[in-house]
């Protein structure tokens, strides 16, 4: 079974993030506040409410090593929150935007963070010790529309973005005094801040949810035309694969490993994609039980067959009747907009991640890398 915990925290959740030890979760219940919940005696309790923003918070990220929360909002500002004693203290980061901030992510070394915005720009923010101040540097060029998603390459310098102009771009974000020129092999060593390294023009419509694989060798993003794009070797010689989906488009994706990707979106049901030995990506299955109700109303041959199966199982054992009806709605009841990996210190094959969406639920999923992926599911 894939969904291990389902929590109805709010009416609607725009984004969420986990504390470094995963004992706490921060999310925005579609307003100007960030709520932080903690697991106390088997119950999730609200322990902090962060208010400082004036408009809806569109992005939250919680750094693993420095334990800082960064939030961005439609009010065009960003705050970095650090914990002092039991309180969360905000520091304003002036992004210098004239449109809403849409997404945020800490860099792997956590000395920078990137903000995508509706102002066709990306802000790279870094801390200036001498002024005790977060500085925002803008990449103004190139984007022709809102930046919907940002993703850091593991080398802490390259940043991938997706935009509603349909393109996925990779930029160099090298900042003097913050980054060191020790990236090792070749190409990205002599690039300046804001320089575009690649532009992928695969989607003909809005692009969302860009992510790098753990090694940074593969880049993946989604299009609003129900497509997923996988690109290998973006910096040197990009080779792209596009995958057309049968169902509704995706909003966000997550690499569980180099060869396993989870996609979430308007189908309210996470999708598993895997690459075979030759690097060929394909859709494997839905993670949640497939909803039975909508297909049976169509009256097609397929659903008739499914209905027969369903009816038979109903007759054979009474216990079975409870199970399918329980999952008829699925874990999520509305579009999933955010997926976050849950880190585990113990070496295990089970991967955990959480999803949140417009239905206000946070669902924690478990996927056994070795077994679950290969299971034949409903298609």
């Amino acid at each position, binding site marked *: 079974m894939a969904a291990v915990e389902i929590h109805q925290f709010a009416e609607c959740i725009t984004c969420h993030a986990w504390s470094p030890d995963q004992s706490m979760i921060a999310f925005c219940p579609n307003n100007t506040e960030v709520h932080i919940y903690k697991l106390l005696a088997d119950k999730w309790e609200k322990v902090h409410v962060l208010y400082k923003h004036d408009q809806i918070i569109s992005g939250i990220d919680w750094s693993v090593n420095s334990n800082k929360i960064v939030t961005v909002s439609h009010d065009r500002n960003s705050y970095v929150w650090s914990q002092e004693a039991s309180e969360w203290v905000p520091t304003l980061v002036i992004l210098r935007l004239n449109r809403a901030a849409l997404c945020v992510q800490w860099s792997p070394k956590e000395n920078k963070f990137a903000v995508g915005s509706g102002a066709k720009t990306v802000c790279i923010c870094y801390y200036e010790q001498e002024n005790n101040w977060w500085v925002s540097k803008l990449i103004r060029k190139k984007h022709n529309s809102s930046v919907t998603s940002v993703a850091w390459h593991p080398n802490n310098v390259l940043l991938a973005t997706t935009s509603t102009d349909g393109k996925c771009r990779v930029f160099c974000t090298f900042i003097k005094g913050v980054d060191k020129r020790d990236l090792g092999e070749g190409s990205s060593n002599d690039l300046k801040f804001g320089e575009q390294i690649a532009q992928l023009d695969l989607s*003909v*419509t809005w692009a969302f949810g860009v992510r790098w694989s753990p090694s940074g060798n593969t880049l993946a993003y989604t299009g609003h035309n*129900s497509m997923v794009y996988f690109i290998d070797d973006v910096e040197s010689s990009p080779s792209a694969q596009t995958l*057309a989906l*049968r*169902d*509704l488009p995706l909003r966000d994706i997550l690499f569980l490993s180099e060869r396993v990707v989870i996609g979430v979106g308007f189908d309210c049901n996470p999708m598993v994609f895997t690459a075979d030995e030759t690097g060929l990506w394909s859709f494997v299955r839905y993670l949640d039980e497939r909803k039975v109700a909508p297909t049976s109303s169509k009256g*097609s041959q397929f659903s008739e067959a499914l209905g027969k199966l369903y009816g038979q199982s109903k007759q054979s054992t009474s216990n079975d009747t409870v199970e399918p009806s329980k999952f008829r709605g699925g874990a999520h009841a509305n579009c999933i907009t955010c997926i976050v990996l849950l880190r585990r210190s113990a070496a295990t094959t089970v991967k955990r991640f959480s999803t949140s969406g417009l239905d206000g639920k946070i669902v924690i999923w478990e996927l056994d890398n070795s077994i679950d992926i290969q299971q034949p599911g409903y298609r």
Partner: protein
Amino acid sequence: MAEEGFLEVENLEAIITRIEQKSRKIESLLKQSKPVEALKTALEGSPLKTRDERCKSANWIVVHRAMMAIKDVDAMFSSLDPEYYDILMKYLYRGLATGDRPTCDQCLRIHEKLTERAGLGCILRSLADTVNTV
């Protein structure tokens, strides 16, 4: 962009000639009662990139001719490869936009079966694509 414009001027006549050839081929395929082959021929090499409405209408007339000749929709799908699904969906929406009763009837019949096979993703690809239009 400039290169694209140049290509367009060069090829406009070539596109029209190609569609005329397609039209003759389709007529002969229909005479041999191979409607699915005719539809495939009509869909192949559709002028998607050009903005020229004359080319688009010319190709639509050809696709329409082949589409209206389809009698058995289920039989059509058993020999129509999935690679044609996305482009066929685009032409179905063009057909529905005409408002013509027999055309719409036929488009809706095919649309139902196509959605069953190709899913909602296919509809989204045809609606979201503003670059490759039919």
